[in-house]
């Protein structure tokens, strides 16, 4: 039977380009409570026993990703669970319900493991999900935790074979002597069931924590990236992977830089980039050599000497790197800014957008409470004209590259009333605070939007705010 979720839907407003409206709000913990029976596979040796009835740390969403058509939306959480949402099909009966996403499938992708040799736990938190392009009726996605990548197949089943020769209707083996005639099993319709099965498990290839996976445009290979190495896999082969980047120094005491993210170029299967904790991006060509330790291009902006502090390096560390859909541009996110790079210009970015520059004077406090290490992601819209990234206080920001306008919106239950468009928010940096503004010191740094996704072709966005998933769109057809 299809899984029902506690989903709230709001009627979208009419077509107004620009203002954003909430379409669906998923309170994840509610979903979990309903699906208790199906997915409770907690093993006894788990040292963490989690209660399903209220929001817990396991419900914190750790990754969000649309599939290439935008029909499906996957989220991964800290508890190792993947929830896949499917968009409602357009129907004449309820035309306004198009654009709503409902739960399609949910499954436990990764379990916590214990490495006995090192006496360390391996978290089951899903770090990244990447969809494969659809080639048949089934959907495939890659999901990864710190150490292991898995290929999952999500498929529908609405027919069941009946009339076996060797088994009876309950599945018991029939006594062969009682079989006097042969019959052909017939497929009978059944209630729609969505099942997820692990098809491949790619393990034991990473000593350090995997932070990225990226599917190649050849649809045959993908790469997995940890702090110091990047491995290339064939989707069919799980017992072998090729190391294509290795920045581990001979003496670990000399380690000063790690890899923070990596991605394949969307159309050239030989090209990929990886970013570092020192704020540099390297573009590599796999045709040049087997081990791509030498980059083809190095994108790095010289440091601004006037802004230099002890925290300069930390805030220059790149938390996310994304190619534009066109493949011509690169977007990087560091702690305070988003930058768009032209692949043909390595010396400096094409555009720099300030996400929350008011935090520049608070860096020491943010260092103390570890917020300075938060890894924000960034996303392109389908036409590469708008970029979006998250901030604190459940704020997220959008920058229109053409008009140079930007907007700050908030993903919160209280401020997203149904049938109301989202109101732009503003942070007051000093002096008099206006009525609707919020001062920097009132920002809630525990509410951070690290993960978000943009529909590949439409203006629909999915924003993860801790354990809640918000889906907004700007207009309805």
């Amino acid at each position, binding site marked *: 039977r299809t899984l029902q979720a506690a989903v709230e839907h709001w009627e979208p407003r009419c077509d107004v380009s620009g203002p954003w409206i909430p379409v669906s709000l998923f309170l994840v913990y509610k979903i979990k409570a309903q699906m208790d029976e199906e997915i409770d596979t907690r093993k006894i040796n788990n*040292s963490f026993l989690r209660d399903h009835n209220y929001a817990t740390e396991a419900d914190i969403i750790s990754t969000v990703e649309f599939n290439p058509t935008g029909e499906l939306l996957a989220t991964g959480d800290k508890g190792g669970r993947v929830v896949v949402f499917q968009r409602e099909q357009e129907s004449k009966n309820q035309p306004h319900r198009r654009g709503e996403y409902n739960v399609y499938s949910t499954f436990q992708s990764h379990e916590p493991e214990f490495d*006995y*040799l*090192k*006496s*360390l*736990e*391996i*978290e089951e938190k899903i770090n990244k999900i990447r969809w494969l392009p659809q080639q048949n009726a089934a959907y495939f996605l890659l999901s990864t935790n*710190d150490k292991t990548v898995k290929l999952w197949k999500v498929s529908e089943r609405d027919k069941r074979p009946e009339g076996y020769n060797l088994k009876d209707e309950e599945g018991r083996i029939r006594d062969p002597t009682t079989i006097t005639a042969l019959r052909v099993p017939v497929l009978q319709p059944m209630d729609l069931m969505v099942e997820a099965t692990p098809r491949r498990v790619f393990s034991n290839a990473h*000593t*350090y*924590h995997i*932070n990225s996976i990226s599917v190649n445009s050849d649809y045959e290979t993908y790469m997995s990236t940890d*702090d*110091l190495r990047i491995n290339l896999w064939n989707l069919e082969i799980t017992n072998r992977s090729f190391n294509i980047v290795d920045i581990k*120094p*001979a*003496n*670990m*005491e*000399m*380690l*000063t*830089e*790690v890899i*923070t993210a990596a991605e394949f170029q969307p159309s050239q299967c030989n090209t990929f980039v990886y970013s570092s*904790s020192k704020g540099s991006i390297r573009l590599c060509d796999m045709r040049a050599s087997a081990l791509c330790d030498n980059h083809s291009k190095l994108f790095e902006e010289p440091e601004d000497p006037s802004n*230099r*502090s*002890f*925290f300069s*390096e*930390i805030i220059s*560390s790149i938390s996310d790197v994304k190619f534009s859909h066109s493949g011509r541009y690169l977007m990087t996110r560091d702690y305070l800014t988003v930058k768009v790079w032209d692949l043909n210009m390595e010396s400096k970015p094409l555009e720099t957008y300030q996400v929350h520059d008011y935090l520049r*004077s*608070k*860096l*020491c*406090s943010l*260092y*103390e*409470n*570890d917020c300075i*290490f938060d890894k924000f992601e960034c996303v392109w819209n389908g036409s590469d004209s708008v970029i979006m990234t998250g901030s604190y206080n459940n704020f997220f920001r959008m920058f229109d590259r053409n008009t140079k306008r930007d907007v700050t919106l908030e993903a919160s239950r209280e401020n997203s009333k149904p049938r109301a468009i989202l109101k732009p928010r503003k942070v007051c940096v000093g002096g008099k605070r206006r009525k609707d503004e919020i001062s920097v*010191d009132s920002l809630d740094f525990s509410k951070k939007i690290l993960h978000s996704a943009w529909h590949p072709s439409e203006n629909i966005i999915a924003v993860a705010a801790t354990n809640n998933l918000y889906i907004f769109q700007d207009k309805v057809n």
Partner: protein
Amino acid sequence: MFPKGTKRKFSDSREEPVAGGEDVNQSSLAAVRMLSSYSLQRQSLLDMSLIKLQLCHMLVEPNLCRSVLIANTVRQIQEEMTQDGTWQIMTQALSAANAAAQCSADRLVATEVLCRQTEAAQGEQVPKPFPVVGSEGCPAEEVLEEEEAAAAEVGMTMSTVSPQAPTSYLPGTFGMDPCWEEEETGEDDDDDEEEDSEECGSGSEGEERERDSLVEDTRTAEQVFGTFEIKNPAPSPDPALEELFSDVDASYYDLDTVLTGMQSVPKMGPYDLLESLSSHGPSPLSSSTSCRSDLNELDHIMEIIVGS
């Protein structure tokens, strides 16, 4: 969070003392105060960073990126303090305290921990600006208090010493990398490395001596955030045991404080795994004892597995 209005622009407050004033006495006093306040801030940042590196004692492997960034911050502070000459003062004070406890300078990190614990038990007050590994004996609050006291102490000494130009230290002026820098960054600035080695070669004997202690101190500093693992001098290993595990890669086995419940042993640091993987690499200070300590660890692990 720090109280509102506290400026944390280190680079800004640093330039202030240089600005001249009309009243020389007044301005120099203010400059000294400013410098000491900056030094205190810098010291507290250093202490905070070291605590962060230590407190990665979760059951889960610590985040390598975070650890590297914090370690780089510590390194930056070290560099700056080295240029100021305050680093030397601090490590001298440290080595004096350790010399009193009859520990070699090589084992600066290890002895600091042991000294700290024994002295804490004895109630002795020794300036310990380095809250290094082994915080199990001293809970976080205690460590913080001690650091603040230490920081204040060091700050006081620094305020009186700071105007003194670091003469025997760096031949260069404008932030020239000291000798040991070339050991760290193999990848960038080959030109700088060449310059450094030239500078290192020249100089009086006094300078050489300073540099040697510098190298030593830096190496121990490297140990602080490079290894986070005490290499306790162990008795000669059991030959039978050695033979048994001769083909086992000992580098995997780290100290397992949780399972063995050993209190005197430091928690997992960010570089534990990394250090263990490179334990057979060229590290002159630790290579002699690393094998023996690894075998001790093996012993512990085997005990757990066997359940004896």
